[in-house]
């Protein structure tokens, strides 16, 4: 009964435009206050303690690094290099967009950041190349979502902390699915460009190609460095994040010379905007899960599953459906934190691999970024292109269908996500 009241209050509040974090916290605090088991001061303590986790520090670090990379030239030179190699091919500009997103995704852990960094340069280029605006916007919004599937990934950090699974293994689990999805997007982009005969960029000379590639080497090196060090176990994901931040700062300030002291405030502000928003959601969701665990809701749901003999695939189907629906109006961090404490005992009961589930969940969260009415990437692209949200939605629709089909493949073929982590363990 109280649980129903809690969820209703949460929905009521966020529908009234209360920030999601505040709605989560206020709903949980109100119900707990009336139940009388908790003092409010314990709740604040819980919020504070939930943030004092070393693993979570990876989030601001990757966000920070992403901001520096998009402001300091690394993203820009990556795109120039890829464009000089592939821009003249059929669908070349679309391929460049997807590849840049995939590489940027291997450096930054966030989807909106990826869409913003690559879109700022590729959207005008695509339009100039004669691509319809609707398609260009949809392409950027969709390939930007690779940000959280290709490691590193903010969503996976949050998931890993919640279910106490190794972040490094989760990252490795996302690698092959991420590259698969990128390839699927590239193939469909080429096919579409051939059918519709979209424009191409002028062919670059070999001299230009080498010049651009050389300039972009520090950017290309970064994903290898981040994943390599985590893979070899030399550093933790958090440390890799911090190293890449320092690297990005050094490259931008001293090699490219595109970042100076006067940019510091903008970089600070943008990193803080995103990191603090995520941290507030985390702190608020912890109060929510405090309520759930205290009332043994997860256990009750797990028992229900056990009694009803629900099979693994029915469960996964139900989860996907639930994530999809929640994803239309919530964003990734809150969905993960609200659902995982409840789902975790069931996943364990049904013997589903937590890494496999983490990858499935992440692809669902990618969809959440591009499904209306609330999808962060849709907002990013709409405001960047000064276009209406409906237009972006129309452009992104074919990509939603592609991603759903990919999700089905992922659910029924666990090896795809488990091959690298398993090879690593043995």
């Amino acid at each position, binding site marked *: 009964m109280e649980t129903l009241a809690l969820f209703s209050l949460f929905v009521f*509040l*966020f*529908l*009234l*435009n*209360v*920030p*999601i*974090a*505040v709605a989560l*916290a*206020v709903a949980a*605090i109100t119900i707990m206050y009336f139940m009388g088991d908790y003092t*409010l*001061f314990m*709740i*604040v303590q819980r*919020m*504070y303690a939930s*943030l*004092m986790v*070393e693993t979570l*520090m990876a989030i*601001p*670090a990757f966000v*920070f690094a992403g901001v520096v990379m998009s402001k300091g030239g690394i993203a820009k030179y990556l795109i120039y290099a890829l464009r000089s190699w592939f821009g003249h091919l059929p669908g070349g500009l679309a391929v460049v967009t997807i590849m840049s997103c995939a590489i940027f995704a291997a450096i930054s852990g966030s989807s909106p950041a990826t869409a913003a960094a690559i879109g700022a340069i590729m*959207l*005008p280029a695509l*339009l100039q190349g004669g691509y319809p605006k609707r398609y260009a916007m949809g392409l950027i919004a969709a390939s930007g979502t690779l940000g959280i599937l290709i490691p590193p990934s903010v969503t996976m950090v949050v998931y890993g902390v919640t279910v106490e699974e190794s972040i490094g293994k989760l990252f490795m689990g996302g690698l092959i699915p991420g590259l698969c999805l990128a390839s699927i997007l590239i193939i469909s982009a080429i096919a579409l460009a051939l059918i519709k005969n979209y424009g191409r960029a002028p062919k670059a000379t070999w001299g230009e190609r080498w010049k651009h590639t050389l300039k972009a080497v520090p950017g290309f090196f970064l994903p290898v460095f981040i994943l390599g060090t985590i893979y070899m176990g030399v*550093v933790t994901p*958090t*440390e890799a994040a*911090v*190293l890449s*931040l*320092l690297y990005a700062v050094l490259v931008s300030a001293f090699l490219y010379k595109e970042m100076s002291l006067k940019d*510091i*405030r903008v*970089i*600070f*502000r943008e*990193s*803080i*905007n*995103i*990191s*603090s*928003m995520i*941290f*507030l959601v985390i702190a608020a969701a912890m109060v929510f899960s405090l309520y759930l665990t205290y009332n043994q809701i997860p256990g009750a749901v797990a028992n229900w599953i056990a009694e009803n003999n629900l099979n693994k695939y029915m469960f996964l189907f139900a989860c996907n459906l639930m994530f999809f629906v929640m994803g239309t*109006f*919530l*964003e990734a961090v*809150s969905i993960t934190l609200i659902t995982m404490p409840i789902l975790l005992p069931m996943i364990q009961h049904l013997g589903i691999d937590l890494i496999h589930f983490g990858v499935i969940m992440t692809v669902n969260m990618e969809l959440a970024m591009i499904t209306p*009415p*609330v999808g*962060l990437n849709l907002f990013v692209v709409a405001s960047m292109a*000064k*276009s*209406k949200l409906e237009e972006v939605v129309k452009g992104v629709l074919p990509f939603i269908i592609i991603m759903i089909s990919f999700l089905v493949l992922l659910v029924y073929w666990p090896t795809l996500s488990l091959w690298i982590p398993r090879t690593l363990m043995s």
Partner: protein
Amino acid sequence: MQKFKKFYAAFEDYLAGGLLFTGLMLILVNVVLRYNPMWRPKAWIDEYSLYLVVWGTLIGIAVALRNDHHIKVDMLYNFLPLKAKRWVSVFAMTLGMLFAMLFAVYGVQLVKFYYVMGQRSINTQTPEWIPALCLPIAGVMFTVRFIEKLWILLAHGGREWFRLQKEKEEDDLGNISPI
């Protein structure tokens, strides 16, 4: 007043960003120490980097509010007429302000609690009440920004708020031409 506001915004940005950046760089120091045979990683660095990052992000909550970066669900809100929007926003911001105040008040209580109990951290024996000070500080700064939002919504019958909404609308529809 305008000058003070500008100064205060800069203060928020540099304080939150500076704390966050310093905290993250401290993590790096320990990596360096670990891989140098001459040195050992220091436990105090781990602990203090955590404090600094959490301080930075908590204080930054106010910055994110100032820049309208806290995620909201607009699907119902967007269908409302302008006047209704204003009152819904008044409700949302009031609730936010109450939450921020609660955060500040109970933050003070937590600090007091740690102080009276004399709890210290395991690694460095730092009194726990000192890092916990960020709760009341962040709570107050967060409250201040909510009050500002409410002021814009309510003062002079919401004149300033209506002006901002109009600006936003023109910005959204004004230039659909390709960029």
